[in-house]
């Protein structure tokens, strides 16, 4: 067993990889990237079809491809990569052996079989039901079965993560509390378990309904429980990518949290309140009371928004503090100007933070307000919002982490470093514009999941304003730019792994070196409170963010006040 339990010390980062965990992290991450590639190709087809007058796919293929795009990206790409992150945060960061690696392989196999099954079901054309698969619209049983298998695999992955935490604690591989990043991953894991449970509660009866054992699935009940899966899975992404933000702050700058207490409390608020946001999708539904909607959509008084606003300050704030310690103290922003903008690990994360906050966060709160939701419900504003959160927020953060993992985990030099350097900027340029133009078109009423906003061939067509067509055309152009940016990522990553220059693997040892707290650090170190305004640049940025937030929020109330009276 000595060889199977061996640990490799990465000479570049000093991280200690458990051999079995290392392999599982690799296969899960690679599987994720394969689905990202597939989803990316589908994304190009979807967006070009929606460019007015282009229609590269016919209607039937469009709805099929859109279904696959949603599931491959939102579920398969992200969850595979998140399982890799969970294993990394438990095993690698705590220098512990991974719990039950064989179960890890079972989890991986189930997830892969599930993902392939659902994809086959979709591409056979019998399951063009969109990612949401709203009952009573019915997909082929294999569609649901694949998702269920995938979820079971994911659940096993979550328990391996938890088991590893237990082992690390028992075997004393570290002292004190788990690192903040691992704490964030634990948050993601807990939300993931809630998510998967909701998924099981709704998808198993729906599967039985599709094979004829259950008579009827109530459409509203389906919506309520399905969104326990659909929205919560995006909250897993949020918790995971914020953990990655903190991790990259530590990796690139050696940043420590401004305050462990604040950052951990913010994660705790996610566990308590974030899932209530499932209600965001039900605000314009019949049969649910206003009280229920207000309480839930606000995550019980916006405590989860509060949490995100805290992370939004503390992640860049911790980078600022670390930079100022290195001597970049001039003015408000020397620390930022002198940041390593040519390092894709950093630039991805910074662009992820800004885009997630300004585009994804503000729009998310607007549309998650009970009455304001009527203005954008089911319009293409919604995809605009979640491309800002899930693509700019999560995917871009994962891309940034990849550039760190290539040398550290895969022992490969990042190939074509020039391309890698530009990749986050190209991808962001495309995605920022895409999110903005989708939101613009949605504000003008353009529906989501719609093949032809020109309504050709209908008796009573409606003509959307010219600006809506302009937005949709710009959307198409930005989608191409984002596709190129995504392609650069996949090209660099795949090339590095397959043909990249091998780096020194480092030494192996049978046991990990436990993490011991350096005594001096335990005594001193910055703890704030001394009245030194160390993160004032970030604070100023945060105030700009708040101003944009307040302005945009009330503009929407003003607009709502001008439409037909409804009550």
């Amino acid at each position: 067993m000595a060889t199977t339990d061996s640990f490799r010390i990465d000479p570049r980062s000093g991280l200690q990889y458990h051999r079995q965990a290392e392999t599982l992290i690799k296969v899960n991450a690679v599987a994720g990237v394969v689905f990202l590639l597939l989803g990316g190709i589908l994304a190009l087809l979807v967006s070009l079809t929606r460019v007015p007058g282009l229609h590269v796919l016919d209607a039937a293929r469009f709805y099929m491809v859109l279904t696959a795009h949603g599931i491959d990206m939102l579920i398969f790409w992200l969850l595979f990569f998140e399982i890799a992150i969970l294993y990394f945060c438990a095993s690698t960061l705590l220098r512990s052996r991974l719990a039950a690696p064989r179960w890890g392989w079972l989890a991986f196999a189930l997830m892969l079989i599930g993902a392939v099954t659902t994809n086959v079901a979709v591409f056979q054309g019998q399951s063009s039901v969109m990612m949401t698969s709203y009952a009573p619209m019915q997909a082929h049983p294999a569609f649901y079965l694949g998702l269920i298998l995938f979820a079971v695999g994911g659940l096993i992955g979550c328990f391996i993560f938890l088991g590893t935490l237990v082992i690390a604690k028992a075997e004393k591989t570290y002292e004190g509390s788990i690192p903040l990043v691992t704490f964030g991953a634990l948050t993601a894991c807990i939300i993931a378990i809630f998510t998967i449970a909701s998924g099981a509660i709704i998808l198993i009866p729906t599967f039985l309904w599709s094979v004829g054992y259950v008579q009827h699935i109530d459409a509203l009940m389906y919506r309520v429980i399905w969104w326990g899966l659909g929205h919560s899975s995006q909250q897993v992404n949020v918790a995971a990518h914020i953990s990655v933000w903190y991790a990259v702050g530590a990796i690139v700058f050696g940043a420590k949290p401004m305050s462990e207490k604040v950052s951990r409390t913010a994660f705790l608020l996610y566990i308590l309140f974030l899932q209530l946001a499932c209600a965001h999708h039900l605000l314009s539904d019949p049969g649910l009371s206003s009280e229920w909607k207000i309480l839930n959509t606000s995550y019980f008084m916006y405590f989860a928004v509060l949490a995100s606003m805290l992370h939004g300050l503390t992640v860049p704030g911790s980078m600022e503090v670390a930079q100022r310690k290195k001597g970049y103290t001039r003015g408000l922003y020397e620390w930022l100007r002198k940041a390593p903008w040519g390092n894709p690990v950093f630039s991805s994360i910074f662009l992820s933070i800004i885009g997630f906050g300004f585009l994804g966060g503000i729009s998310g709160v607007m549309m998650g307000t009970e009455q304001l939701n009527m203005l954008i419900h089911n319009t293409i504003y919604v995809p605009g919002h979640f491309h800002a959160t899930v693509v700019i927020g999560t995917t871009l953060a994962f891309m940034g982490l990849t550039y760190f993992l290539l040398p550290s985990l895969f022992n490969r030099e990042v190939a074509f470093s020039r391309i890698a350097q530009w990749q986050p900027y190209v991808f962001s340029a495309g995605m920022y514009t895409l999110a903005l133009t989708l939101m613009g078109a949605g504000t003008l009423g353009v529906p989501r999941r719609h093949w032809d906003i020109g309504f050709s061939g209908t008796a009573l067509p409606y003509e959307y304003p010219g600006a809506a067509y302009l937005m949709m055309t710009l959307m198409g152009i930005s989608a191409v730019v984002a596709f190129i940016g995504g392609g650069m990522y996949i090209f660099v990553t795949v090339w590095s792994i397959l043909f990249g220059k091998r780096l020194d693997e480092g030494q192996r040892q049978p046991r990990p070196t436990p993490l011991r707290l350096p005594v001096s650090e335990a005594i001193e170190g910055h703890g704030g409170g001394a009245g030194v305004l160390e993160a004032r640049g970030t604070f100023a940025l945060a105030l700009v963010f708040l101003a944009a937030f307040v302005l945009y929020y009330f503009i929407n109330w003003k607009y709502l006040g001008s439409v037909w009276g409804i009550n």
Partner: protein
Amino acid sequence: MSSILPPAKRIWWKEPVEKLEVWWIVIAFLWALVLFFMMPYWHVFGKQNLSNEAYRISAEHFQRKTQEMVDKYTVRTETDQNIPVVQPPAGSDVYLIARLWQWWPILELEKDKTYRLHLSALDYQHGFSLQPENINLQIVPGYEMVVTITPNKSGSFAVVCNEYCGIGHHQMVSRMYVKQSDGENGNGHD
């Protein structure tokens, strides 16, 4: 020492929080309260709120109620599918069916008058999207949603389906007309 290592101080929860962070927590918390109270505030003082009135209903029942209205108030038909245009009296209950892939019938309302609009779907889920007002509601089969509407502009409005409902989804589009009220005719609006 860093976010990927255990906290340097074992008793990290007793470390003081930096002043700026405290300020931000206070600001963010106050803003969260504003966000929260805007919703009840609008329920009291705003004019655009979804009602809580909804019923379970069968497709046949909803169809029957709609048919009764159509039988009483149809003024003409439009398109080669002969979709009835109904002009129900102000203040009355009006019905709109969403089904694959059609809205039925076409409502003709009066500006600044109030109607109780009943919405339901007969088959799949649909989305009621009134354009260019951009009011969007979810329509769920088996449930009848009742909203009181007061059109404050006149003209021809479009009703677009914005919940994916199958291969004909993008052809599901219809109209809703709003006429000037009698007293206002000839004011030059619209």
